[in-house]
């Protein structure tokens, strides 16, 4: 599959060795990867369907090196694709042929953990889980826990505004960032917020804009995150239902009752069948869907919540409700969810997972639509997702060896995402737009909405060299924006060329 990207400049590609020499002068000989065989592993991120050979891979070791690399690239008109651990599920770190990969892997230190302020200051390449590990001796943790947390970096989490199982109750990455240091293409170093709770008060919320900006605005060089106390204890309920609808209604009923679980996950029958052999468990043959509900807090609180949710589930027609009575049992229940994607991976040659979010009460409608699409494309699918926040992750199964199968899977996914938007939802809940959902943006946003976002990008990076070809289906035309004049209140609907 070749994703349409901005045209590569052959003159830049021809200068590879010369550019490598210039970059080596900044980061050191061994930290510019130029051999073709060694660039190959950087051809894709978490989506292997899209690949492109980067011009060079540059691995700087400091914010200053990053700044000098950006200035060098600006001077030479070289595009830059920032990359953390390369786990994006939307092609956010997909290289461009005439651009470098700017990897943050060497900037992986936890600079400080301050228990008094309850913050951690970390470098962008620090892995998510290492922050909680460093905070743990103080009884604290970093709450956002994308399922990639063992390897995905905080820098990448900020760029994608990563979510995770616990964001239903505790919020997404954006809710946990107190300070950012970032470098703009013009070499300016931004220091936003800082190392304490109210550091970002006053001024525009530029941290809010940078969080989730998918590497198109600036390169983040340091992050201060908020740490919170580790929950005292948690219990998990496993609730089976004889219909998908009943399970969906139960989700609404739990949250409508005023209970916000720490996590609320949905798995359909296909997922359960796939997982069953891996966890040596059988599921009741009448079970069509399973909800996993984590409740945390103090002991009496959690016990009361378990009772309340059990009562709701029973009222909503659950066939079986099981509650964990130990951490080992809790782990066992979670295991089925954690193994879901790997288990599906064993059922098919390849799968494609997308990421739309919808109002919870539209879950039954959208799940019914998926069944229709499955027939339309002749592809099997399974559902395993964050039900509590309506964040769907349909797993569409295909075989990359069959010509046209991937394209069908992509169309299937696009149909699902369009449906999400049509019922009041959005294209992406946590994976980001990247290249994967880029061309669907006009389905959610009007030309003016998109142009407004693009002019915002120009305020940060008028060179458009940072992560080009991502998020927007058209170039930003920052140069024109810079010359823009009053149109006497006339609406502007320019015909913009598509990639």
């Amino acid at each position, binding site marked *: 599959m070749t994703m349409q990207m901005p045209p590569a400049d052959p003159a830049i590609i021809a200068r590879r060795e010369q550019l490598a020499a210039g970059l080596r002068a900044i980061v050191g000989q061994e930290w510019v990867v130029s051999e073709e065989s060694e660039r190959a592993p950087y051809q894709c991120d978490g989506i292997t369907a899209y690949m492109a050979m980067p011009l060079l891979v540059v691995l700087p070791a400091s914010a200053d090196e990053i700044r000098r690399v950006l200035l060098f690239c600006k001077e030479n008109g070289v595009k830059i694709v920032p990359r953390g651990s390369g786990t994006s599920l939307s092609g956010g770190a997909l290289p461009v042929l005439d651009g470098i990969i700017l990897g943050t892997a060497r900037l992986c230190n936890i600079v400080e953990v301050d228990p008094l302020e*309850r913050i951690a200051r970390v470098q962008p390449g620090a892995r998510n889980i290492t922050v909680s590990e460093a905070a743990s001796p103080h009884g604290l943790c970093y709450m956002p826990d994308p399922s990639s947390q063992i390897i995905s970096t905080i820098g990448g989490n900020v760029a994608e505004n990563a*979510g995770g199982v616990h964001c239903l109750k505790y919020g997404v990455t954006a809710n946990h960032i107190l300070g950012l240091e970032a470098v703009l293409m013009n070499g300016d170093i931004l*220091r936003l917020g800082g190392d*304490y709770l109210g550091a970002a008060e006053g001024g525009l*919320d530029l941290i809010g804009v940078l969080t989730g900006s998918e590497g198109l605005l600036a390169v983040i060089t340091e992050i201060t995150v908020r740490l919170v106390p580790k929950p005292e204890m948690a219990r998990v309920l496993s609730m089976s239902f004889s219909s998908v609808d009943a399970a969906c209604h139960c989700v609404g009923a739990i949250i409508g009752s005023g209970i916000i679980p720490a996590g609320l996950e949905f798995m359909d029958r296909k997922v359960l069948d796939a997982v069953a052999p891996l966890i040596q468990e059988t599921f009741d043959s009448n079970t069509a869907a399973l909800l996993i509900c984590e409740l945390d807090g103090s002991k009496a609180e959690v016990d009361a919540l378990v009772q309340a949710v059990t009562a709701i589930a029973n009222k909503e027609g659950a066939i079986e409700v099981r509650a964990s009575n130990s951490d080992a049992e809790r782990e066992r229940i979670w295991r089925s969810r954690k193994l879901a994607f790997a288990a599906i991976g064993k059922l098919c040659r390849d799968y494609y997972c997308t990421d739309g979010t919808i109002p919870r009460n539209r879950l039954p409608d959208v799940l019914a639509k998926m069944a229709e699409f499955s027939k339309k494309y002749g592809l099997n699918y399974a559902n395993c997702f964050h039900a509590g926040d309506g964040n769907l992750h349909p797993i569409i199964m295909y075989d990359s060896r069959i010509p046209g199968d991937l394209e069908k899977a992509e169309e299937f996914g696009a149909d699902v995402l369009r449906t999400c938007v049509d019922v009041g939802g959005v294209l992406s809940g946590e994976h980001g737009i990247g290249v994967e959902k880029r061309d669907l943006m006009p389905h959610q946003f009007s030309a003016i909405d998109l142009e*407004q976002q693009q*002019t915002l990008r120009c305020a*940060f990076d008028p060179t458009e060299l940072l992560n080009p070809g991502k998020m927007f289906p058209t170039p930003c035309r920052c140069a024109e924006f810079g010359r823009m004049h009053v149109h006497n209140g006339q609406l502007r609907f320019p015909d913009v060329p598509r990639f």
Partner: protein
Amino acid sequence: MSETAQKTAATAMRPTKPEDVASVVKDAILNGHKLDIRGNGTRTGYGNPVKADATLELGGLDQIEFYEPEELVIRLGPGVTMQTLRATIAARGQYLPFEPPFWTGLYGTDPARATIGGTMASALSGPRRLFTGAARDYILGIQGVNGQGEHFVAGGRTVKNVTGYDVSKLMIGSFGTIAALTSLTLKLWPAPPREQTLLFDATDLDADLVRTAEILRAPIAVSGAVRLETPQGWQLAFRIEGMQEGVAEHVAELTRRIDRPVAATLDDKDSAAFWTTIRELEPLSAAPDELIWRINLPVSQARGFIDVARQRGGLSRCFTDWGGAEIFCTTKPDTATDDAVSRFRALAKACGGHATLIRAPDALRRSQGAFPPASDAVAALSTRVRAAFDPMGLFSPGRMTVA
């Protein structure tokens, strides 16, 4: 200008429909008019005075478009008053966790007219911000009109959404300098059924803040942590909220962990009333001619700052919020000078923090700015960001920046 945009004064426009907002802006473009954008204007004392040719009041956009309690979401016009909003969602057991203050008492305006639009544009968050996040954390989507008279949409209505830049957050705390909001979509939360506040006698400030930090690191649902002067002397107050079972346990855990006896306990209504006074900065008992400040700084620096501000900054009364990371204080009337204000700001900066003038005479806010000055890089970027939405600089010029 559009006929439907109701003229409330010679230069004040008060549209009642989103499309009329666009018409007002287009008219302003044609006439080269600068617009002072506000809700009902109850908090214009917060931020810098604006020099504009006309006022665009969004208070007329006062409709709730939808409220879906089971989805924890509401979409409403910026002109819906805080009282209406709070009553509407309270009827379904929900609330705005970031506890936005009104501050109308500080500005001598009518609390009944304070709007959600103004609250969000001013990024007003109260004591619970410590626990549940700030105003910015509860915005899901916005609609507005940019400086070219175009209606645009950003964000959505779902809690998880990473589709495009988070322009919605950019609006929070932008004081009308980016766009004229026509709609806000907010995330709501179930209101905790019970709350209890425990007061303890204070000791040394540093020791109290270290102890507070220990409490805040424990798995106790502390949703308010202030240190203030009461008729009983300096006291520490902690609020615990949640369901019945949880509150009892957390209170027990708090009293176990703190090193002193409980001086007083406030239940539910009394507790709520106590935190309303905190939220509205009543412990400052600010005299009309005193300046009111908010200082955000590292907890570790709070003691040092208060000491030096008393000695050299003209500080008269203060209390600490957010476990010590936020100080509210008044300074004496004679500090209402350019010199005194910049000196005071320098003291905050020396402590690693920054100081915002919450209330000061217009002239002083005009010359010194209500907000702490940004670095050159951040100031330049902020200017470009505003220009990306409002290239002609029509919206609330000078509200956040000093010329």
